[in-house]
């Protein structure tokens, strides 16, 4: 896959930055002319990944969240979100629908949504050192559909 554009954003893990991160990713990817549904999916997966860094990785303590967005030839994109927080001891368990170590405000559905809204997801984590989530997705855009 040949990369044609990319951006990296590093920001403080504060909940107010969840909307900043998802809007920024969507704005960067606007160059692919995504459909409204594609935009909603991108914003949602970014929101899930970034929220996890803040809530679980750093447990609401200060820490940097890094988001990289890459565009490849043919409309493929890759979104990488990482923290240097506490890490995930058991990744398959963490990715099980409804599994959460959070409080009543968490549903344990973040990974399920990230999986559902991307074509491929990879999670790497080392307890005590942090977590990286990599998601790949194909963006068809609006062109094909408005051809007629």
């Amino acid at each position, binding site marked *: 896959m040949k990369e044609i554009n990319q951006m990296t954003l590093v920001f403080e893990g504060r*909940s*107010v930055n*969840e*909307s900043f991160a*998802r809007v920024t990713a969507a704005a960067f990817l606007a160059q692919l002319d995504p459909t409204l*549904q594609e935009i*909603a999916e991108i*914003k*949602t997966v970014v*929101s*899930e990944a970034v*929220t996890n860094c*803040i*809530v679980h990785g750093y447990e609401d303590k200060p820490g940097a969240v890094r988001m990289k967005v890459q565009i490849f030839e043919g409309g493929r994109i890759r979104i990488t979100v990482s923290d240097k927080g506490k890490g995930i001891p058991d990744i398959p368990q963490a990715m099980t629908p409804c599994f959460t170590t959070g409080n*009543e*405000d*968490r*549903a344990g*559905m*973040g990974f*399920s*949504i990230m999986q*559902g809204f991307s074509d491929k997801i990879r999670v790497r984590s080392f307890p005590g050192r942090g977590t990286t989530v990599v998601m790949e997705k194909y963006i068809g855009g609006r062109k094909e559909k408005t051809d007629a």
Partner: protein
Amino acid sequence: MINYEVSERILTVTILGEIDHHTAIGLRTEIDGLVRKYSPLCLILDFSRVDFCDSSGIALVLGRYRLMKSLGGEVELIRLPENVSHIFDMADLKRLVKIG
């Protein structure tokens, strides 16, 4: 932010704007305050003015479902935009609450 309306022990809450981890805590506090004040038999959540919702919205609904159940009432969700119903389907919320 929310708007609300009460009539004959039906509390209808219209959620305005975005539902994520940042906004969900305030929404929960506001909605639960109204539930305690009016003791409705049915809590209707109107999503027509929600322009973003992630899994924090699922937890918001589940929590209000548990609260209303503990008070002997029920929850109904109405006017879901497509992106919201898509997410709620993933959690199979219609098992627990009426979606109209």
